[in-house]
């Protein structure tokens, strides 16, 4: 089987964000970077599928500046066979359709049986790219999967629905699947696998940027105003506890 996993490098969401000079996105300086959490589930599911079927080749793809190769190495250490780095310093400001076009352009001649992506990125969070890749390639896409089984060429997945229910969906390959949190338990790369990953192929390619074009414009980028009324308590912990208990007595009936 020929499998593609698309990943994104994102900042740690606990970071202290600043706004960039253009006022169009967060400032990318001085941030800790990691693999988009949803994509870790995509990588893990692909590795498990290879463990199940034996004969499978896993390509991990990531678009961005040189620094994304660090994140790609984690995917290789988790068990992907080869990496394709699509070099693009402007990736962070590209729209979902542009990113999807770059991925589809790479994938269109490779005959991938299954493409795994995260259901969304933690920073932009559009939940568009995976479905758009599938539409551009003309293959089915099933989104938000929390269960996956592959047997005799048939793909069975569970889609997560609002309220905790699930839809059971069957299809065949080729197919694109977008992975939701909880699909599996992503593994931590072991030291021997981290060493092995250093020897795996990590190819950098230049994307074809012709034909890409903006369909939308960021007109403002800002921190939300904190909703008024909330009391912020800071200081020595025992004192904070006293203040909080006092507030609970005063404002709620629960400590009566």
């Amino acid at each position, binding site marked *: 089987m020929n499998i593609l996993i698309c990943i994104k490098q994102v900042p740690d*969401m*606990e970071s*202290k*964000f600043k*706004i960039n000079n253009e006022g169009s996105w*967060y400032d990318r300086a001085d941030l800790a970077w990691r693999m988009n959490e949803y994509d870790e589930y995509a990588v893990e599911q692909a590795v498990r599928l290879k463990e199940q079927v034996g004969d499978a080749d896993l390509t991990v793809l990531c678009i961005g500046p040189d620094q994304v190769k660090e994140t790609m190495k984690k995917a290789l250490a988790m068990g992907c066979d080869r990496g394709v780095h699509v070099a693009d310093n402007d990736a962070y400001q590209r729209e*979902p*359709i542009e990113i999807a076009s770059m991925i589809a352009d790479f994938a269109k001649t490779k005959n991938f049986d299954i493409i795994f992506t995260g259901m969304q990125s*933690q920073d932009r*969070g*559009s939940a*568009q790219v995976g*479905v758009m890749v599938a539409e*551009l390639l003309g293959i*089915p896409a099933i*989104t938000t999967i929390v269960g996956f089984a592959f047997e005799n060429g048939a793909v069975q997945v569970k*889609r*997560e*629905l*609002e*309220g*905790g*229910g699930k*839809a*059971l*969906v069957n*299809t065949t390959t080729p*197919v694109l699947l977008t992975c939701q*949190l*909880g699909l599996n338990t992503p593994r931590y790369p072991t030291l021997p696998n981290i060493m092995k990953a250093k020897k795996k192929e990590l190819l950098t390619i230049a994307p074809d940027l012709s034909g890409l074009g*903006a*369909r*939308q*414009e*960021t*007109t*403002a*980028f*800002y921190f*939300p105003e*904190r*909703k008024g*009324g*909330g*009391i*912020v*308590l*800071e200081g020595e*912990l*025992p004192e*904070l*506890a006293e203040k*909080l*208990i006092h*507030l*609970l007595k005063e*404002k*709620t009936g*629960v*400590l009566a």
Partner: protein
Amino acid sequence: MKTLLVAEFREGKLRVKYSQLLAFAKELPTEASMFLVGSTSDLPQFDGTLYLADVAKYGEYNPTVHKQLLLDVIAKEQPDRIVFHHSSYGWDLAPRIAVALKAAQISEVMALADGEPVVPVCNAKLRRKIKSQTARTVLTLQAGAFGMEEDPVGTPTVVPIDTEACKKVECKGYEAARIEGVDLTKSEIIVSAGRGVGKPENIAMVQALAKALGGEYGGSRPVVDAGWVEHDRQVGTTGRTVTPKLYVACGISGAIQHLAGMKKSDFIVAINTDKDAPIGEVADVFVVADLKQFLPILTEKLQSR
């Protein structure tokens, strides 16, 4: 301006949240029509045109077929905006329409500012206002962001629609949400653990505080996915929606999916080291502290009252 609203139907019923689509349309100078793969036995309350495909024929989840039905309506109706819920149905179908129309898609719209959509960035820590540059725009609306004070009323003018498109995937049915163990929706006091608890051993601190307050403990999605807190105690869009008298969020950053499940609680206390965490938007009291040090002190003081 014309807006086409895409309503949803699941497990034999119209999803009542279509009123949020109407509330959004009401904020714009627009003429609204609606699209639904559903049934005449359960119609939305709305005075306008409803393009209705028969769910018995086309299925509840059937992306390629629903896409074609919708594209046919768009060709006929010529709307400027096509509006979905940002839901398992909407985020699945909307990008297919945006690709087909070569239209801008703006996901998870949470508000309108100067008539332009505003969306969250980085787990709702930041906001981005967007202007579409295409003639048509596809939008998905954040759950609960647009609401109506009263239930919608009206009777739609039903226009039946059909297509010849074939399906590529097969929806075999549904699996119900697991309902077992504790029912948090009945609890008056809930203390919930988030990723900030750091490790599974620290859940005990959250349980101890819940006990000292005489309530139940719960968790956000990451700690439930990690197996630190049981599934039936998950609070949020895919877990329980709770409205206790007191909700204490310990180390919970406040992802939208979590906020949607607890923001209607009477009184919300957040305990977090990160003052910018979005949980601050709904908190009545925000305690800036490391829960691992603060919870034992708070619990002890409550016990010795």
